[in-house]
């Protein structure tokens, strides 16, 4: 196990792509053991050969169609127009926009970049300091990962064999709790004059116009959420319906996407899928070795000796949070989740609740200064340095962490919607 850990750390530090670094460390362990090396290929195959994971490329493709075809833009315009009458409304509009937009394309980096490019200049025009708008968009991006359809949930649902529809349903209220906490902070800062109190931005006519423009795009969330939560479709079926609807709207109704662009989107979808899922494949070798060496059992024994599930939840969240900051989000959760989930179940923690808490922790990790990947991307878009954004961002990180604690210790918040709609 020492060789495995050593090679893994050295490979990460050297900059070997995370998927291959995990594979290389596992290979180093297997070469020293008497386990047949064919295990590498077997695990890489069986780790991804699970039908619900088919939803990954479908949601990625739907995300690309929404982003390029003008669907997301029209929904974001509506969200920005609605929150006008409240102090700090544009900041809250950014949070609302992230709730609708983020997490769908499978690449939180792409989402952060796209949303930063739309929202930060708009906020700048109404008097927001670039540092504040960067901090708000970063916090909203971290929260947005909880909003279904969320790629991390599709992946973890596949890995943990938990209903993806139930996970989507479980993410709703926690996302709302975190969004509410961020909005309250924005409101507080706007009242104290720390942010522009842009109440005048509201116009009923503008809302009407934005709503009219967003009628067709609003069918998209109805297909995704309505289908899954209503128990009509599975997550995979909802994803393919979103692809077909997105294709028709983008190519034939709005005509904002050409066939050549569709071709490029298909290739990009394949690449995003390959880059994410090959990680699951190599992480599957790694988690097999961990299980074979009884690492989860050892941690479970230790945690059972302490006997406090709440402490385990806290420790697991901190590990995922820090791991996500260092390992760019999803890779960290893919590596650690198969080790942590069985322990959580042994300690009596509901697996769906545990998974949603892990996703929430990942969301904070990807915007944690100074290494959170999405924060770096958003700073790149806004041309604000990491040191400049750290101070305005810290209060947001603090409220997000408090929200995480609330989600962590009140399982009802996660479980009520899946129970209510009969998905769990």
């Amino acid at each position, binding site marked *: 196990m020492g060789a495995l850990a050593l090679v893994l750390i050295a490979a990460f530090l*050297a900059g070997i*792509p995370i998927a291959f670094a995990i594979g*290389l460390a596992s290979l180093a362990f297997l070469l020293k053991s008497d386990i047949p090396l064919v295990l590498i*290929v077997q695990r*890489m195959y069986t780790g991804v050969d699970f*039908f619900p994971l088919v939803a990954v490329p479908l949601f990625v493709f739907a995300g690309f169609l929404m982003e390029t075809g003008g669907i997301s833009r029209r929904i974001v315009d509506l969200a920005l127009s609605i929150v006008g009458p409240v102090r700090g409304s544009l900041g809250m509009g950014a949070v609302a926009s992230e709730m609708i937009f983020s997490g769908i394309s499978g690449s939180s980096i792409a989402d952060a970049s796209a949303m930063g490019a739309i929202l930060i200049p708009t906020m700048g025009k109404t008097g927001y300091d670039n540092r504040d708008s960067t901090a708000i968009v970063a916090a909203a991006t971290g929260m947005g990962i909880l909003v279904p359809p969320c790629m991390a949930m599709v992946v973890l649902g596949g890995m943990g064999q938990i209903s993806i529809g139930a996970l989507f349903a479980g993410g709703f209220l926690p996302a709302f709790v975190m969004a509410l906490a961020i909005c309250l902070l924005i409101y507080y800062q706007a009242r104290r004059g720390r942010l522009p109190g842009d109440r005048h931005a509201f116009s009923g006519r503008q809302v009407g116009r934005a709503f009219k423009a967003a009628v067709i795009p609003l069918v998209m969330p109805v297909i995704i959420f309505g289908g899954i939560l209503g128990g009509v479709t599975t997550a995979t079926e909802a994803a393919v319906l979103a692809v077909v609807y997105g294709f028709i709207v983008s190519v034939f109704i709005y005509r904002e996407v050409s066939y050549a662009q569709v071709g490029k989107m298909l*290739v990009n979808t394949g690449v995003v899928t390959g880059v994410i899922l090959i990680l699951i494949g190599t992480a599957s070798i790694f988690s097999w070795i961990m299980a074979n060496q009884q690492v989860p059992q050892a941690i479970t024994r230790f945690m059972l000796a302490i006997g406090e599930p709440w402490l385990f939840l806290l420790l697991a969240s901190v590990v995922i949070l820090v791991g996500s900051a260092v390992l760019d989000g999803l890779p960290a959760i893919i590596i650690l989740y198969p080790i942590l989930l069985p322990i959580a179940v042994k300690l009596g923690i509901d697996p769906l609740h545990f998974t949603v808490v892990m996703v929430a922790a990942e969301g904070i990790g990807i915007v944690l200064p100074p290494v959170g990947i999405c924060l770096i991307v958003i700073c790149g878009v806004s041309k604000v340095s990491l040191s400049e954004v750290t101070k305005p961002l810290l209060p947001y990180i603090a409220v997000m962490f408090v929200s995480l604690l609330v989600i962590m210790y009140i399982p009802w918040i996660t479980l009520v919607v899946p129970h209510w709609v009969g998905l769990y």
Partner: protein
Amino acid sequence: MMRKILSNFWETILAACVAALCAGVFMQVLLRYAIKVSFPAIEEIVSISFIYTIFLGAAVGMKRMEHLSIDFLLKRVSLGFQKVLRLVVAAGTALFLFFVVREGIGFVRDSYTQTTTYLNLPMSYSYAAIPGSGLIMLYYLAKRTYAIIRSGGASAEAEGGHL
């Protein structure tokens, strides 16, 4: 046109895999809801397309250097050391991929008699995606390594990515 397709050969196949996957899942949904019939054979086609999407996608990801990695050390060292580090990265990745290809070929050979339930296709068609993808990745890795050796760490960085 032909030249463009050839230069993007793997991208074209990848796009076809994703399109087949989408079409297959959509057809399943249509059949299930419209005529209340399920065709498991379509699910097998979707599964094969899915496996090829993953491994071919990872291979094209290698060509485009889109695999996620931690680069904070790489950004903090001198250009000379960057070149050394890039070569170490390439060697480590190649070592893993070599075993993936070697073991993958054996895995495909040993599973030739296994077939899928409905279409009776050899499972090895699906398993072949792994060593195949490994070979493509090794090819792009070799190309990249050659570029690093010839042009040095600085220009490699200018082209983006690690490998």
